[in-house]
């Protein structure tokens, strides 16, 4: 890594996931961003709201019928990269009839108002 990254600049990054997996590639390619960012020692946050909550739904099986790669196990691997700040919006879950028990990773559930507040504290916001 370049030495400039040893300068100690630490920014609050948020990866905002608002899209469902498989219909489009954004969920998958955002994950690739997130994994790379782990190497930069930044303060990484992942937010799941709107259809983004479907990304971490348990029991995904895109291979057998739709013929697509199942990348959902990667969310479980994030912890190994020290990416542990995962936030899910309560209202988004409710609208879709989902609960925390449906999710494949441990997350912090936030109200929409608290999610908005958290977003407001970020330096860099990236999504798909």
């Amino acid at each position: 890594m370049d030495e400039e990254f040893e300068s100690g600049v630490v920014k609050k990054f948020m990866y905002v996931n608002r899209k469902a997996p498989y219909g489009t590639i954004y969920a998958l390619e955002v994950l690739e961003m997130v994994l790379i960012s782990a190497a930069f020692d930044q303060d990484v946050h992942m937010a799941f709201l709107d259809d983004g909550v479907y990304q971490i739904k348990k029991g995904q099986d895109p291979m057998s019928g739709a013929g697509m790669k199942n990348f959902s196990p990667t969310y479980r691997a994030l912890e190994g990269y020290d990416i542990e700040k995962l936030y899910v919006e309560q209202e988004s879950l409710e609208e879709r009839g989902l609960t925390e028990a449906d999710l494949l990773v441990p997350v912090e559930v936030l109200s929409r108002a608290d999610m908005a507040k958290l977003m407001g504290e970020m330096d860099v916001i990236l999504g798909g």
Partner: protein
Amino acid sequence: MSTLHTVNKSPFERANLDACLGHALPGDAILLIEDGVFAAMKATNLAARMTDAAKTFKLYALAADLKARGMDPANVVDGCTVVDYAGFVDLAAANSAVNAWL
């Protein structure tokens, strides 16, 4: 004369399903595919509307796309039939035209 309508977008993100429901004729078939399958699920805040729609239209959801997203085919709204790709082909053949709500 009847039409098979396909809807491939999430009802939470796009207006495609609304547009389809607003233009399909009674008795037409509506097949939910790709991110459209979320609209088929019983527990969402759209479920009452979809159960209702299933009384006017023949409502279907694609099994492969439900399974891809971890949606249990057993939990679709009343009146919705889950079909595989062969069933999709049969629906296209059985109706006289196909209207993809892209």
